[in-house]
C-alpha cells in the first residue's frame, strides 16, 4: 500500500468518526439555542402580560404573536420561578406533521391578586434540524472525500518528491562505482534527516570500500617483491651443494612459494577485474582462442588419458579483453582436466550463444551455489587454490556473461551464455526494474 493511500485512509477514518459526533454536538447546541431563545421570548411575553395586568387592562389572547393564558390562582410562587414544558402537538390532522410547542408558566402578584400566566409558542422540531444537518453533512462528506482522493496523489507527489528522489538515488547507488551520493536538499525535516543519514552511511561505505580495495591492491603488490626474493634465493640455494633431505625441504618451500604467488596473482587479477580495468574494447574471435586452447591443452589431456571432443563454430566473436579470454579458457579447461576421473571425457562446445564445457567427474561435495566463491573447493584437491572459478565468474560478471554450473549423471557442466547488450555491473541490477515500477506514482 502506498504511503499516500495510508494517509488518505487514515484521514477518511478520522473524518467518519468525527462527523457523527460533530453532528450530534451541532444538533444539541442548535436545539438548545432555539429553546433558550424561545424560553427567553416567552418569559418576556409573560412579563409584558404582567405589566398589562398591572395597568388594570385585560390582556388579549395573543401578546407579541404568542398565545397566552392568564389564570387567577390562590397561591403564588417566587418571581423567578418558571415552569417550562415542551411537547409535540398535532396542530392540523391533515398536515400529518407535528409541531413542538414550548410553554412557559410564571406566577405574578398584581394588585394583591395572584395570577398564573402561561404563554406558548411553536419552535422548530428536532427532526427538522436533523434533516437540515443531514443534507449539509452528506454534501460536506462528498466534497471532502472527493477532494482528498483527488488531491492526495498530487500533494504526495509534491510533498514526497525529496523522498522519492532519495529512494531512486539509492536504487542506482553502486558501491563499485566509488561515487558518493548527492541527494536533493529539502526543507522537510524528516527527509532532510533521512538524507543526512543516508549520505553518512553511503559515504562511509564508499570510503571503506575504497580503503579496502587499496589495501588489497597494495598488499598484493608489496608481496610480489619479497616473494621474488624468496623464490630467487631458493633457486640459487638449490644450485648449491646440497644433500638429499635439504633438497626435499627446498622443494617443499618452493611449492609453498608457488602457491602463495599464485594466490597473490589471482587476488590482484580479481581486484583489477572488479575495478573494471580490463574493459573490452573490441570483439575477439573466441573460436580462434578456443581452438588454440584446445591445442595447448591437448598434451595434458592425452597425458591424463582423457578423451576430448569439441565442436567449435567458426565465427563466434565476443566483446572481451584478449588477456581475459586466455585466463577464462585456461581456468575452465584446466578445471575440467583436474577434476576428472581416469578414462574420463571432456566436451567443449562453442556456438554463437554460449560456450559449454562438460566433463566427467566425481559429484561435487559442496553446494554448487558456492562453486564460484573464492577458496571453495568442490573436491579435495591440494594442487588447487580454489580461486580459478571465482576468476571465471568475475570475468563473466564484468562482461555481462551469464555463467551456470550444473552437475547431472556424473557430468559437470559449465555454461557461459553471451548476452548482447548493456555492460554494467550494478549492485541492485536485478531488483531495479521491479522496484522502479513500484515507486512510479
Amino acid at each position: 500500500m502506498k504511503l499516500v493511500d495510508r494517509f488518505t485512509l487514515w484521514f477518511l477514518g478520522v473524518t467518519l468518526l468525527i462527523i457523527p459526533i460533530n453532528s450530534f454536538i451541532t444538533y444539541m447546541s442548535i436545539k438548545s439555542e432555539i429553546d433558550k431563545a424561545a424560553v427567553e421570548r416567552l418569559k418576556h411575553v409573560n412579563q409584558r402580560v404582567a405589566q398589562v395586568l398591572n395597568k388594570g387592562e385585560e390582556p388579549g389572547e395573543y401578546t407579541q404573536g404568542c398565545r397566552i393564558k392568564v389564570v387567577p390562582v390562590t397561591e403564588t410562587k417566587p418571581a423567578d420561578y418558571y415552569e417550562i414544558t415542551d411537547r409535540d402537538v398535532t396542530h392540523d390532522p391533515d398536515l400529518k406533521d407535528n409541531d413542538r410547542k414550548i410553554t412557559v408558566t410564571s406566577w405574578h402578584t398584581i394588585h394583591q391578586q395572584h395570577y398564573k400566566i402561561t404563554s406558548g409558542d411553536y419552535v422548530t422540531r428536532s427532526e427538522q434540524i436533523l434533516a437540515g444537518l443531514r443534507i449539509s453533512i452528506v454534501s460536506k462528506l462528498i466534497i471532502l472525500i472527493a477532494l482528498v482522493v483527488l488531491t492526495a496523489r498530487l500533494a504526495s507527489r509534491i510533498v514526497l518528491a525529496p523522498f522519492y528522489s532519495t529512494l531512486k538515488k539509492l536504487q542506482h547507488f553502486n558501491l563499485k562505482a566509488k561515487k558518493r551520493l548527492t541527494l536533493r536538499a529539502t526543507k522537510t525535516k524528516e527527509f532532510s534527516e533521512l538524507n543526512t543519514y543516508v549520505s553518512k552511511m553511503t559515504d562511509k561505505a564508499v570510503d571503506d570500500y575504497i580503503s579496502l580495495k587499496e589495501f588489497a591492491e597494495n598488499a598484493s603488490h608489496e608481496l610480489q617483491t619479497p616473494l621474488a626474493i624468496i623464490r630467487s634465493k631458493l633457486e640459487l640455494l638449490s644450485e648449491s651443494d646440497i644433500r638429499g633431505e635439504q633438497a626435499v625441504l627446498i622443494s617443499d618451500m618452493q611449492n609453498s612459494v608457488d602457491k602463495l604467488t599464485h594466490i597473490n596473482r589471482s587476488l590482484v587479477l580479481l581486484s583489477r577485474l572488479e575495478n573494471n580495468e580490463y574493459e573490452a574494447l573490441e570483439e575477439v574471435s573466441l573460436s580462434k582462442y578456443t581452438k588454440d586452447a584446445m591445442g595447448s591443452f591437448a598434451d595434458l589431456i592425452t597425458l591424463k588419458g582423457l578423451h576430448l571432443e569439441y565442436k567449435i563454430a567458426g565465427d563466434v566473436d565476443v566483446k572481451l579483453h584478449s588477456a581475459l579470454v586466455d585466463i577464462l579458457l585456461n581456468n575452465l579447461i584446466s578445471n575440467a582436466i583436474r577434476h576428472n576421473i581416469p578414462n574420463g571425457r571432456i566436451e567443449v562446445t562453442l556456438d554463437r550463444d554460449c560456450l559449454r564445457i562438460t566433463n566427467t567427474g566425481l559429484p561435487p561435495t559442496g553446494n554448487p551455489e558456492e562453486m564460484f566463491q573464492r577458496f571453495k573447493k568442490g573436491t579435495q584437491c591440494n594442487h588447487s587454490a580454489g580461486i580459478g572459478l571465482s576468476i571465471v565468474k568475475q570475468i563473466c560478471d564484468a562482461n555481462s556473461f551469464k555463467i551456470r554450473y550444473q552437475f547431472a549423471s556424473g557430468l559437470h557442466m559449465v555454461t557461459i551464455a553471451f548476452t548482447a547488450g548493456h555492460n554494467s555491473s550494478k549492485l541492485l541490477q536485478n531488483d531495479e526494474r521491479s522496484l522502479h515500477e513500484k515507486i512510479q506514482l
Partner: protein
Amino acid sequence: MKVLLIEDNVELASSISEFLAREGYICEVSYNIRDAQDRLVSFQYDCVLLDIMLPDGNGLDILSFMRMERIQSSTLILSAKNSLDDKVIGLEEGADDYLTKPFHLPELHARLRAIYRRKKLNGSNIIAFNEISLDIDTLEARVNGILLDMTRKEFDLLLYFIVNKNRVLSRQSIAAHLWGDYTDNLANFDFVYQHVKNIRKKISAANGTDYIGTVYGLGYKFNTSKQ
C-alpha cells in the same frame, strides 16, 4: 653478454646478478634511475633489465630516455605490478619483453636469451647442443639430423632445458614456463614428469644422449657432462 640490472631491491638484485654471473653474463646493478641513466650513457649494454617502481621515478621513463639517447640495448621489464597497462605501455615504449615478479630465475634467463636471439637478426635461429638442434622458427627439433615428432610444449620444454643447461630446473619453474602464471596451479607435477619422460624417450629413440636427469627432490637438470 653485458647486462644492466635496474632494481631498487638490494636482495633481489643480488640474486639476479649472482644467477646471471653464473651464466657468464657481465651484470651491473643500478638501484635508481639517475645512476642507471649515468651508466647507460657511459657504457654499452646488450640488455637492460628494468624494474618499473623505482625510488626516484617510474622505470618506464628509462625507456623514453634510451630512445632519446639512441641507446640500442634490448630491454626486459621486471615488474611487481602485473598491470596490463604497464605491459602495454612498456612494450609500446620499446621494451622487448615483460616479466612479472615473482619470476623464476631460469625463466628470466630464457627470456633474455630469446631477446638476444631476436636482436641478432642475421644470426641463425638454430640452437644446437652436441647432437641436438632446435629450429626456433619452424619449431623443429632434430637429434643426429633426425626430426623428432614433438608437440609444441615438448619443444618449448627442451628449449628451456638447453638454454638453462647444467641448472636445476624446479618443477614449478617448468610448469610456469609451459602453462603461464594464471592457470590455477596446473603445476600438477605429473604433467611435468610426463613431458620430461616423453622428451627423454624421443631423444633416446633417435640415439641421442639422455642429458636430462632427475635431481632428487628438486626437479630436473640438463646435464652436459653426460656422454
